[in-house]
């Protein structure tokens, strides 16, 4: 199969790659770009472990083709912190023990950030529905929801 040449922006950096036309953006990010923080849990858009944003929209990287990233802005977990400073969501996930095995964590962080960008003061119900596309099998979601609440508070304080 002939490869497709793609020029895109990943976490603010210009990136070029060649991939088969039928290769998912998830495989591209993991296997060609080396961003293995994006996880594969199902490959069918059901688990959210590969959550990224594409031009700011929350998507499952397994449901997007690598070729579709042409000219667009991709953000992954690797682009979340600011240098050595963790994003408040990352900080609160650690402080609230919101992760056990941690394989779903990158997806949850991206989805939670997407929520808080839109809605800085979500209710518990809004958090639960916004994160319903991300599966976690370890925590029962309790500490994840608390971490998102705490991070939302931190972010609101930062803005003041």
């Amino acid at each position: 199969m002939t490869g497709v040449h793609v020029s895109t922006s990943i976490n603010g950096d210009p990136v070029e790659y060649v991939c088969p036309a039928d290769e998912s953006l998830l495989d591209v990010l993991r296997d060609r770009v080396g961003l293995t923080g994006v996880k594969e849990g199902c490959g069918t858009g059901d688990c959210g472990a590969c959550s990224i944003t594409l031009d700011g929209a929350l998507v499952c990287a397994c449901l997007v083709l690598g070729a579709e990233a042409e000219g667009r802005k991709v953000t992954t977990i690797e682009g979340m912190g600011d240098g050595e400073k963790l994003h408040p969501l990352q900080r609160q996930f650690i402080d609230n023990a919101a992760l056990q095995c941690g394989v779903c964590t990158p997806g949850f962080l991206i989805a939670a950030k997407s929520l808080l960008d839109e809605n800085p003061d979500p209710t518990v119900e809004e958090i639960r529905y916004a994160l319903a596309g991300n599966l976690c099998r370890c925590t029962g979601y309790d500490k994840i929801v608390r971490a998102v609440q705490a991070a939302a508070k931190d972010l609101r304080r930062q803005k003041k």
Partner: protein
Amino acid sequence: MKHDQKYTGQEFKVVGARVERPDGVDKVTGRARYGADANAPGQLVGLVLRSSHAHARIVKIDTSKAEKVAGVKAVLTSADLPDLTNGDAGNYATLVNCMARDRVLYDGHAVAAVAATDKSSAKKALKLIKVTYEKLPHVTDVDEALKKGAPLVQPTNKQDGKPSNKSGHFEFGHGDIEAGLLEADIVLERSYKTEQTHQGYIEPHACLATVGPDGSGELWVTTQGHFSFRIMCAALLGMDVAKLKVTSSEIGGGFGGKTHVWIEPVALALARKSNRPVKMVMSREEVFKASGPTCATSMDVKIGAKKDGTITAAFIECRYSDGPFPGIWGMLGGMTAWACYDLKNCKAVGVDVLVNRPKVAAYRAPSAPMMAFGVESTIDQLAKELDIDPVEFRLRNVAKEGTRSSYGPIYGPIGIEPTLEAVRDHPHMRAKLRKNQGRGMASGFWFNIGGQTCSDLNVGVDGTVNLTVGTVDVGGARASLSLIAAEELGISYDQVKTNIGDTSSLGHNDTTEGSRGTFSSGMATIFAAREAIEVMKSRAAQMWGIPEDAVEWKDGEARAVGAEHGNLPALSLKEIAAEAGATGGPIAGHHEVTADGSGVSFASHICDVEVDPETGKTTVLRYTVVQDAGKAIHPDYVEGQFQGAAAQGIGWALNEEYVYGEDGCLQNAGFLDYRVPVCSDLPFIDTKILEIPNPNHPYGIRGVGECSIVPPLAAIGNAVSNAVGVRLNHVPMSPPRILKALDDAGA
């Protein structure tokens, strides 16, 4: 050196603190490396061809076209995996499960594998492998498999001298059931079913294997037990154990499912045949179809009681579907069934049954949740018949220290009564319920285990400490073990860094299963630290030029004692470490132990549900877990285990199930149709940690990982039944089953 492992009741300075986990930053930044996150130069992609028949004879496998595909470096069938198991039935079952030999035994059974330079070439080659099957009759239901004339899953399996799908029969208990039933004022007989569920870890099985022509190899793998994986792979492939180095990656969930090898021997065999590194990652469909779920069950319960609430006889028989190979699932269930109660007459029969479904693997307190569903549902109904509060009814029959357990031995100090008292006194029990809402509670038991363990503790030149353990960290154990090392040494938590060692860096460590990680590695760590302290005391004595017995260790420093030396300023761990080279070399402590004496666990749960009578949908409104931890080393992660186990139990109770078609094929091998609980399905899960020390651990640790998956099936069953006024006896209590139960009851 032998150390005394008895509980001492020591006061803790750092144990019990909610500290930051050492793997936290890596996991929130995407840096943590899991099974599929490792790569090697020149690696190949390995893929497996799987059966789409439930049961068939393999007449012929033609791989000639696949071998000719450009980029294909190795094609593998069972012919490449000679039987080296020397009559070991367990190993042989694993070999056959990893790659079918004469027959495929379930939908998804591996029949061939390829390794190629890229995924599309490997996929192309798989399509060109031609397998000629002769279809055989199949059976997937546990009750059908026991009927006369049922297709035989293993024609060589016999029960009472005759070919049968029954592969095991285990009885536990004491007293005389018939006599006990005669004493009863009331006898209830009920039957129940539970469907097959999967552990559902988010990270699929994945590994990277290398084997050279010199017989040496390496395996990077997501596993709960890299030492056990090494033994298993070496045995199946005829390798020397010492020449296979297995490194456990970060593990993205296991819950029992990663105690067993599936693709790993295949990856190693492909790597050996191609002499190239081979990476294999299961798809989610493969995880569902071909890695170990837990059993489906069918059971009958009979309990007799007096009017005052005394149980006079308790009987259960539960049939477990093992997949195509005999397991010990009925045995484990039988040992746990009545463990919460003090019973004069009790009997539990666990039966193992072969069916054409995937080979079952352990799932968190394996086999206990099913029998607990039958036992706790029937006990609830009995309490209602006798007009006794269900918690009070359980308390009247509760097991205590000194009770003969239903599985045999007499109990030491145990926590079932305190969990029930905590439930009785919990404000949750007095919260108001509205229309279509119901409350239920249930209790559960799990053993916990110990096993072979060793830990290495090395003091660095700057006085910081590396702890290396061989038990895979599945839920935050590195934080707990760092706390334990810091506690013993008398230094702060942030001065200790715990790592999981690979198989070449430590002696054998049993798999992290049976809630044993913190119990057994905790024990090995305490004693390794104490040995390091002895070394440091001797170094301090040298530095001072005084006898070793004039040195004691307190609060992270050596102190000279006695009238003669008491005025010497103390030497800190850091100061002693800085002089290590001049006083005899590196400072280390090491301990290896067969950690026996694990303490049993009990949990009691409360839940409130609302059932929509129109749709049959159940919403969990409130959930409370009470469990005895022995000692909570890191309370955050103890709560996390309680909450996670409860959530898995809730999924099992309400939604999760393997659905098989008439053709014997799995119809819902994906997260869309096999629905695990999502964030919007669950409420906050309240927890209460009880600490009844295990007398056989220096810190009183029991192990916390499994027990809380045992009560939810029955707790929810009781709550749903109280909400709708009709008893639910089939798990999962999915909307169609609830609607049918309401219909049948004419409600």
